[in-house]
């Protein structure tokens, strides 16, 4: 034994020796291993030599060494193993392995010697810790469980750390396999440090595929890295696989159920089915099926989008059924925004926030919020199923007494995560009081009231700041701040002063705290009328003497409301002199003037206004008016609605200046208004709404001296000047051949509408019917303009004119406001006198000459003329008319003439109408002139008797000789007017001047010839205007003036006869016969030339 040991030991010594030589550790180790290997090689090649001694350990305490038995060694062969350790122990055994306690570091010689059946050939090995491998036992899985709803595997195992030295590192490797192909779906390792005690470890893993859909297997192994152990360390074996499978417990066959996931993540749904799954869809989208085992399938969704409220449906359709599940894709809660905590009453804190981005999750999945106060450790929870949109969330937190500083943390949580925000507040600085209520106002006096209101809240420890808004009609609102000591749930009262008496105020109030955070809302408004006070000022007074100078009229202005301090009820007017004081009775308010009968003594008038509280101070004014001799009237023009008046300072004026004004067109005493100005001022602006442009006003400036007023200046003025509204009235006074004298009148003040600055006179050649002068100012070359700036000038002579020429004259007045309207006139200058005289004298001379010659001739040949034109009256027996109208004309001529009755048928009898005969009317009988000669030729004698008896004139066109035999076409005129018919003038006398004709004609026949109507009108106007009496309806000019009815015309030529034709047509008026006594001569004498000649011999 010793030998063996020594022998086995030798090499080790040799190794030692070599180690001493080769100092590097590595070389030494390499040499040992090489040597050991060589020895084992040599031994193995020898028959009966041991091979492959290998030692491992699983706990560092016991080494398990094994070797391969030599060839030929049968089971049960006893061998002896001797280990050179501390005890140099030897073991007899039949196995090929041995467990030995761990050897101390360093080489140990191991001798294995087979005893029976073999020749003793001990094998020697050098055993060192470095040759020992540490292979821990496989870990044991304590528990493998699954959380199916979350598809999570929970693995639990014991690290058995007590078996190893503490602080050893352990590496764990876990594998997850999935059926059916047992593919590795997860391999994962992690490190732990052993503590020397047995520790149970946990590992969770969430599967992408729901665990229900496939059986999952889990195995684990370990690697212990023990720092004290110098040998090799190896992974343990895998533990036994444990599996998780789902046992169907309900109808549900689609997984996962009701899962909440983050938007954008990926998820796999599966369906466990016994029958073939036809389709899988999420929402409306169909997805490709992934086959698992059996008929089970899965679909994979990538980047899932946000779900609607009720979730996204995933549906698998099998041949006979529908399986489904719902997934809720949303977001984790956003960080609560605008977290703000304040209090209304220091009892309750209201924290509000905005939830931020919506999570897309509602109902039980909605975000719930917890408000946590860290100092007190209290919290409140906000839970609400429906999502509020655009609304801030609120939580109420009951304040603890005496806690002012609060540190709030608001946490929002939903299944996908949580978010929080914090706020630290001193709540006394975050007071937003509620709206003040019960606002009341009470009077103290006319300028002070008290306001009281109620404000709920526990403000005992802080001071309040309240703001009172005071609003007065027609003025800006006023804000007053008041600081009040806070109390608990109580009313507050403050006094408000500096108010005006008898004024309606509107109050309202809002409150905050001294450490201002927010104002409360305004309280309701409260209106209040302050009480009255005595009027503060005397009324503004003025006086005027009445026009008769006996009465003094006192005027005063009503006090403005700010000075009246109440409702003015009446005024007291009194006048006092040195001797006595006279007081008038009370004058009630709406009246603002009083009239007192006074002598011209010096009186002081005083006026006092009274309201219900008392009287105003008196306003005093002297009645005396100090005369002023050198007073001039001045002019002033204002701007817009105002006028500026200035004056020089007068040191004598001690009290004040008064400007009164009135409309200048009003009668005296005239007073529109007045204004008082302090005595030290030298100008004032008079302004009044009553002022109108273009109206003249009188302004009077009075100065007050020694209690008497003196008129200092009198001013007429306009607020704004306007152009005159009328033109000056002008007439032509005188006209000569080369000049015109024009005179005009003043324009009344009311129509002038400004200060008259002058006149513009335009003249131009022109007739009346010529176009008027247009654009007078355009400087037309023909128009001459004269600008008359001397307004006192009232006449103008225009010289250098042309004679007998029409001139157009225009006159306009102007003020600074503009030009007035124009007035125009046409004037013809006189003719040159010499030419005029010649032009008049020559025609007169010629006319006289002709008249004289005619007179002489007529006188000389008067017998001849008489025989020729006026023969003696023929015998009535010759009257042919009497022959065929005996019934009418029988008897003496004179009698027949007088008896008009038989002749009454004064009408037209149309025996047969003819187309050429014009329309014949009862009142208008027309006889064509052209037919007259024929008739008269045929029966010239007929007309002799016409004067005495209305003839029945037959007009025969076809057969002039036919008498009574009714022709085929006849017009019978029964003319009773023959005797009034115009006396035809003999043809040869037609040259007599028409002027003479016009003068003689007293009558004209009423014949109207439509053809000549136009001519008739004008001619009638011209020639017969002066014809007195009856106006014939005929144009005399169209007639051949003959006298057919004249008995002396029987021997005249045919033309004379022709006049007796039915052309003499008459109206009914002529049915009234003339006086019986009228001789044919006299009847014609009114108008006929023939009469002229006939009567001439009688003259």
């Amino acid at each position, binding site marked *: 034994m010793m030998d063996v040991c020594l022998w086995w030991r030798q090499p080790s010594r040799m190794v030692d020796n070599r180690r001493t030589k080769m100092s590097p550790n590595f070389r030494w180790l390499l040499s040992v291993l090489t040597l050991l290997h060589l020895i084992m090689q040599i031994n193995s090649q020898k028959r009966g030599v041991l091979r492959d001694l290998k030692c491992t350990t699983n706990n560092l305490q016991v080494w398990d060494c094994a070797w391969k038995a030599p060839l030929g060694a049968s089971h049960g062969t006893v061998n002896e193993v001797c280990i050179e350790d501390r005890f140099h122990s030897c073991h007899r055994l039949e196995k090929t392995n041995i467990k030995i306690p761990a050897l101390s570091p360093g080489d140990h010689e191991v001798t294995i010697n087979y005893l029976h059946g073999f020749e003793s050939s001990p094998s020697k090995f050098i055993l060192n810790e470095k040759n020992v491998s540490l292979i821990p036992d496989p870990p044991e899985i304590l528990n493998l469980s699954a959380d199916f709803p979350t598809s999570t595997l929970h693995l639990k195992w014991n690290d058995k750390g007590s078996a190893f030295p503490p602080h050893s590192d352990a590496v764990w490797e876990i594998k997850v396999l999935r059926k059916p192909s047992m593919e590795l779906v997860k391999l994962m390792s992690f490190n732990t440090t052993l503590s020397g005690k047995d520790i149970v470890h946990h590992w969770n893993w969430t599967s992408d595929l729901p665990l229900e859909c496939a059986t999952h297997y889990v195995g684990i192994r370990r690697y212990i890295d023990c720092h004290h152990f110098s040998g090799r360390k190896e992974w343990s074996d895998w533990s036994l696989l444990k599996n998780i499978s789902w046992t169907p417990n309900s109808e549900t066959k689609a997984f996962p159920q009701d899962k909440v996931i983050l938007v954008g993540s990926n998820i796999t749904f599966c369906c466990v089915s016994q029958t073939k799954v036809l389709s899988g869809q999420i929402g409306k989208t169909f997805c490709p099926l992934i086959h698992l085992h059996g008929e089970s399938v899965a679909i994979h969704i990538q980047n899932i989008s946000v779900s609607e409220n009720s979730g996204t449906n995933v549906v698998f359709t099998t041949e006979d059924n529908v399986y489904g599940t719902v997934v809720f894709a949303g977001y984790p809660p956003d960080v609560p925004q605008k977290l703000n905590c304040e209090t209304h009453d220091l009892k309750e804190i209201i924290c509000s926030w905005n939830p931020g981005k919506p999570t897309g999750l509602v109902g039980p999945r*909605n975000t719930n919020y917890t408000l946590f106060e860290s100092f007190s450790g209290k919290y409140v929870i906000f839970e609400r199923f429906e999502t509020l949109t655009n609304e801030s969330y609120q939580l109420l937190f009951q304040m603890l007494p005496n806690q002012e500083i609060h540190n709030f943390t608001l946490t929002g949580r939903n299944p996908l995560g949580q978010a929080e925000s914090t706020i630290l507040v001193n709540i006394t600085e975050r007071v937003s009081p509620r709206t003040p209520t019960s606002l009341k106002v009470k009077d103290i006096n006319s300028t002070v009231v008290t306001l009281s209101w109620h404000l709920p809240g526990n403000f005992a420890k802080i001071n309040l700041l309240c703001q009172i808004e005071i609003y007065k009609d027609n003025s800006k609102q006023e804000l007053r701040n008041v600081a009040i000591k806070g109390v608990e749930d109580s009313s507050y009262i403050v006094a408000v002063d500096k108010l005006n008496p008898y004024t309606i105020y509107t109050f309202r109030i809002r409150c905050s705290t001294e450490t201002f955070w927010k104002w409360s809302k305004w309280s309701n408004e409260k209106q209040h009328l302050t009480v009255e006070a005595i009027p503060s000022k005397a009324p503004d007074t003025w006086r005027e003497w009445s026009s008769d100078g006996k009465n003094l009229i006192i005027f005063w202005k009503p006090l403005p409301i700010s000075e009246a301090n109440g409702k003015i009820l009446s005024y007291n007017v009194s006048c006092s002199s040195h001797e006595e004081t006279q007081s008038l009775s009370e004058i009630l308010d709406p009246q603002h003037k009083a009239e007192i009968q006074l002598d011209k003594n010096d009186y002081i008038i005083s006026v006092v206004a009274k309201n219900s509280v008392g009287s105003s101070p008196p306003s005093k004014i002297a009645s005396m008016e100090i005369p002023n001799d050198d007073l001039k009237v001045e002019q002033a023009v204002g701007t817009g609605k105002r006028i500026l008046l200035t004056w020089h300072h007068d040191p004598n004026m001690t009290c004040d200046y008064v400007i009164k004004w009135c409309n200048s067109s009003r009668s005296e005493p005239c007073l529109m208004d007045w204004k008082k100005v302090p005595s030290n001022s030298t100008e004032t602006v008079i302004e009044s709404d009553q002022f109108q442009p273009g109206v003249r006003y009188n302004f009077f400036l009075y100065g007050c001296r020694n209690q008497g007023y003196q008129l200092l200046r009198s001013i007429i003025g306009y607020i704004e000047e306007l152009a005159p509204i009328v033109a000056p009235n002008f007439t032509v006074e005188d006209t000569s051949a080369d000049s015109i004298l024009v005179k005009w009148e003043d324009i009344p003040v009311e129509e002038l509408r400004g200060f008259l600055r002058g006149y513009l006179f335009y003249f131009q050649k022109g007739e009346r019917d010529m176009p008027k002068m247009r654009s007078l100012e355009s400087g037309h070359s023909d128009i001459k303009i004269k600008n008359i700036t001397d307004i006192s000038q009232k006449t103008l002579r225009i010289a250098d004119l042309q004679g007998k020429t029409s001139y157009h004259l225009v006159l306009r007045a102007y003020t600074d406001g503009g030009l007035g309207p124009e007035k125009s006139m046409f004037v013809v200058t006189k003719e040159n006198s010499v030419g005029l005289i010649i032009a008049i004298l020559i025609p007169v001379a010629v006319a006289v000459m002709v008249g004289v010659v005619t007179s002489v001739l007529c006188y000389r040949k008067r017998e001849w003329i008489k025989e020729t034109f006026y023969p003696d009256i023929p015998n009535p027996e010759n009257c042919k008319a009497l022959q065929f109208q005996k019934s009418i004309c029988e008897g003496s001529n004179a009698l027949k003439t007088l008896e008009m009755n038989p002749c009454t048928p004064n009408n037209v009898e149309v025996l047969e109408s003819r187309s050429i005969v014009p329309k014949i009317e009862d009142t208008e009988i027309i006889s064509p002139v052209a037919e007259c000669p024929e008739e008269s030729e045929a029966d010239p004698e007929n007309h002799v008797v016409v004067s005495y008896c209305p003839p029945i004139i037959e007009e025969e066109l076809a057969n002039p000789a036919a008498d009574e035999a009714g022709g085929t076409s006849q017009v019978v005129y029964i003319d009773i007017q023959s005797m009034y018919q115009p006396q035809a003038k003999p043809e040869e006398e037609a040259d007599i001047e028409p002027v003479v004709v016009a003068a003689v004609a007293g009558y004209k026949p009423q014949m109207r010839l439509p053809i000549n109507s136009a001519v008739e009108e004008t001619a009638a106007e011209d020639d017969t205007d002066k014809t007195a009496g009856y106006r014939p309806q005929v144009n005399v000019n169209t007639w051949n003036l003959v006298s057919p009815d004249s008995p002396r015309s029987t021997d005249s030529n045919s033309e004379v006869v022709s006049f007796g034709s039915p052309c003499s047509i008459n109206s009914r008026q002529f049915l009234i016969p003339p006086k019986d006594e009228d001789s044919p001569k006299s009847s014609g004498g009114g108008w006929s030339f023939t009469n002229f000649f006939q009567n001439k011999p009688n003259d």
Partner: protein
Amino acid sequence: MQKNTSTLLQTYLQYQGSPFSDPGFSAPELQLSSLPPAAVSFKIWHAMDDAERLNRVQEAFLALTQHLQLVGDDQSDLNPGSPILLTQLGAARLRAQGLMGNMAAIMTALGLPIPPEEDTLGLVPFGASTFERKCRGYIVTREYGHWTDRAVRDLALLKAKYPA
């Protein structure tokens, strides 16, 4: 009431998301064990006597009122922000109760026994998945319509039998 039932079904489906809300959605194969189906063959229905016919309707509406309550609770979780749907479900439940009352009056008038009110739902419905709840609601609202139609038909037949 018949019109309201179809409106309720449409409104209900509209709030459940695709494929429920898809136009023309129908899943006649879905049934609830706790709710008797309204579909019955004409022959069987015709062979029933009045008592049985009215009994069936009465039982069905009893079940429907309970189920409509359940569906209303489900939907206040799923669609809390949809007052229209919740209102219609509540109204449908009240109508079903009203119809039950009327049926009971008729049965009393005819001298028929009124079936006792019993809890048809039991413990089953709690713990159902969201998809199951949606399907359940669909079945309930669908059957509510069918049963209403059937009740109308029953009553019409009854009216023909007992004029005035």
